[in-house]
């Protein structure tokens, strides 16, 4: 009896002692308000226009100023589900999957105090889907299924599609689709290139060119109680060492693009529990694009030799130790149901498990094409991770089959100028997407895509892509995807996939509410982020 009483007393005491810890623990999960989040960004945005740009350098400092029509679920960004931003509810399609009707919230205000209406949403999507002459829309091809966009009243926007498409909603949720004010667009379609006026969780609070972009809390944000932060500072730091040191010295809490394994290890060793690491496969891939307007890259044998020389399986093992790349994959995000399995990949040129056989075939093709000692220049981007590191590795791979390659490294501006003008032999470029949706993501490999830098035409690939997007049957989609992949990577070798990226985000533990996603574009409006300090 006494023993039982002692046990009961002990349990009560233990329970009483545990109460403060339980509260502390629960309190740690309750978002705290206030504070300025400082984070580092590796590059400055080329302009402020999200419809035009394709770089994270725009998303990280600028996305917090804007709302979008829909977005990935901010609380659970990896769920693949969508949530409304300025709409009231994510609609179910009608008319056999061809009509989407969105109701717009009435409480959304631009930062100048004016109310956001369906007219603004309409003006925004007209600019993205069918931009006026002279205006560039980077994601126009994603909306090829859209027949019309209308706004019958101030609270309704209707999208009519040419055919039902599973690619429509992911395209709509792209975080670059900032809602712009119609009045500003009517005034000047280029106004948003140099100015910021959104309805997002933060208000633009100034920019020091080359140094920082600041945002302050939007008190009229349409999601009650958010954002938690008083503001943010996006600090530009081009060198990786500087960015790592900024986190190490607590001058910044995070960098949202990604660090290589070595930097992660350094930070973990230096900061211990003060740093938290989140990792994910990355919906980004480095692509080799031969310029088919130039000889000998118009010869499919040369292009196949270039891809056959690359040991992707070994590269994944080795480069993942020093660079932000890891997975071997085809044209679709590795692991996605529509993407190729290892067995399927091993049938594609350049993925064969027998490296010797692959290299011999590359040599044979070069000899047959009359270029046994092929020489060319690899056009690369002046960003170490992962461009120049992978570029340097590729040059060594090619050397093993007798191909001599120089590397020409340019800053982002001249790099894209060379790609746009076709002034290159072979370029190392990328395909980075936000939502993981291979049906949309693989449009990059079409001859008529907006960023077909290789200058090729392939009607057969277009046909496959089109039929893949028109069918609703997943098994059929997968089967057509394999044929499309084989066409692009093997039969035509119009592009070569190198390695898929791997995202490693070490951030200060006091930064809460942020979850890593397979895309460095997604979920970056910072409305969920709070500081536990």
């Amino acid at each position, binding site marked *: 009896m006494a023993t039982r009483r002692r046990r009961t007393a002990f349990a009560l005491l233990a329970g009483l002692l545990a109460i403060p810890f339980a509260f502390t623990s629960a309190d740690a999960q309750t978002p705290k308000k206030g504070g300025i989040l400082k984070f580092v960004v590796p590059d400055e945005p080329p302009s402020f226009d999200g419809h035009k740009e394709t770089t994270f350098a725009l998303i990280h400092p600028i996305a917090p100023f804007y709302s979008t029509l829909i977005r990935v679920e901010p609380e659970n960004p990896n769920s693949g589900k969508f949530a409304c931003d300025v709409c009231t509810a994510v609609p179910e399609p009608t008319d056999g999957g061809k009509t989407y009707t969105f109701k717009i919230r009435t409480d959304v205000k631009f930062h100048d105090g004016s109310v956001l209406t369906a007219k603004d949403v309409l003006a925004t999507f007209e600019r993205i889907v069918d931009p006026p002459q002279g205006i560039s829309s980077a994601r126009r091809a994603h909306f090829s299924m859209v027949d019309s966009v209308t706004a019958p009243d101030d609270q309704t926007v209707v999208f009519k599609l040419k055919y039902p498409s599973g690619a429509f909603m992911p395209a709509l949720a792209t975080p670059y689709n900032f809602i712009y004010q119609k009045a500003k667009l009517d005034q000047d379609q280029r106004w948003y290139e140099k100015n910021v006026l959104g309805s997002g969780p933060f208000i633009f609070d100034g920019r020091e060119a080359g140094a920082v972009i600041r945002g302050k809390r939007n008190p009229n944000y349409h999601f009650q109680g958010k954002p938690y932060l008083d503001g943010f500072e996006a600090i530009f730091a081009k*060198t*990786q*060492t500087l960015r790592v040191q900024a986190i190490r010295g607590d001058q910044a809490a995070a960098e949202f693009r990604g660090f*290589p394994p*070595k*930097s992660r290890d*350094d930070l973990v060793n230096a900061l211990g529990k003060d740093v938290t690491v989140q990792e994910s496969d990355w919906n980004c891939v480095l692509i080799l694009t031969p310029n088919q307007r130039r000889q000998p890259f118009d010869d499919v044998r040369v292009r196949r030799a270039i891809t056959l020389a690359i040991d992707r399986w070994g590269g994944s*093992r*080795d480069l993942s*130790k*020093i660079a932000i790349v890891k997975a071997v994959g085809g044209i679709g995000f590795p692991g996605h149901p529509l993407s190729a399995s290892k067995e399927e990949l091993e049938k594609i040129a350049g993925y064969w498990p027998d490296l010797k056989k692959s290299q011999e075939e590359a040599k044979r093709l070069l000899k047959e094409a009359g270029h046994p000692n092929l020489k060319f220049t690899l056009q690369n981007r*002046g960003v170490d991770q992962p461009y*120049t590191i992978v*570029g*340097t*590795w590729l*040059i*060594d791979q090619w*050397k093993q089959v007798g191909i001599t390659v*120089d*590397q*020409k*490294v*340019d800053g982002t501006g*001249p790099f894209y100028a060379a790609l746009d003008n076709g002034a290159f032999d072979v370029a190392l470029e990328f395909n980075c997407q936000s939502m993981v949706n291979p049906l949309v993501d693989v449009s990059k490999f079409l001859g008529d895509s907006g960023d077909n830098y290789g200058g090729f035409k392939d009607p057969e690939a277009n046909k496959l892509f089109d039929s893949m997007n028109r069918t609703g049957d997943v098994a059929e989609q997968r089967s057509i995807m394999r044929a499309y992949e084989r066409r692009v990577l093997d039969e035509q070798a119009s592009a070569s996939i190198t390695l898929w990226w791997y995202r490693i985000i070490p951030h200060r533990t006091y930064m809460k509410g942020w979850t890593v996603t397979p895309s460095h574009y997604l979920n970056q409006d910072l409305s969920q982020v709070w500081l536990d300090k």
Partner: protein
Amino acid sequence: MAILSESAPQTARRSTVLSSIWQFCRQNPLGAAGAVVVFVMGFMAIFADFVTWNDPTRNNFGVMLEPPSADYWLGTDQYGRDLYSRIVYGARTALMVGFVSAFVGATIGLILGVASAYFGGRFDLIFQRVMDVLMAFPLVILALAVVSIFGTGVENVILAITIPFIPRCARVVRSSALAVRETPYIDAARACGFSHTRIVLRHMVPNVMAPYLIMMTAAVGQAILIEASLSFLGLGVQEPVPAWGLMLRGGAQEYAESAPWVAIFPGIAISLAVFGFNLFGDALRDWLDPKLKS
């Protein structure tokens, strides 16, 4: 029996050269040390294929970031490349960029400087003001500007380093050429009706060779340093070409703590080369300057 067949004047000439070298070494021990560094560097650059046994560009991830050992004297970098081989081949890059840019820059500067002194008057005035403008920019800044216009790569780096050297050499050479212009043999050449080109190239240029050689030697060291700086900034030579500045860029920053040899050895190579060329250049200046000689 070649020695026996050698003529007396040849033997005498050789002994004069050897004694001059000996005299130079005795009078300028630091300069001699610099000359040794330059010689060793030149030797390694020329015979890099024979004094290394690993391909400087071959990746070998199995031995990445190995510390110095019997197999890899100076260790390996993050790609598993042999640092010793890369430093030896890097000497080739450094000397090629250094010598070509110093030679071309100093030679163009020599011709322009002599021509400016010879013609004098308004031409000299305008030309010197143009030189002033170019010299107003620090060497590295002007080189950066040139690279940003023409792009990266070995050829463009050479161009970027050559252009800033031209006014510096032209200015020094001009001051010597002004004195030469006043000598009677130049008047005599004019009186004979020789062309301007002939007077400048055959009668003036040979008489300003001392400052030219000194400028050129000093410029090699500077050129090596600028090449390393540009490569370190990612604006010079590009991977996988072995170049000291590029080696510092590639490994020094990220692996400075865990694999310090990746940063230390290219750094030593750059310091030693620049130090050697500067010592040698200074000694050469003293040796060739008649006032200091006396």
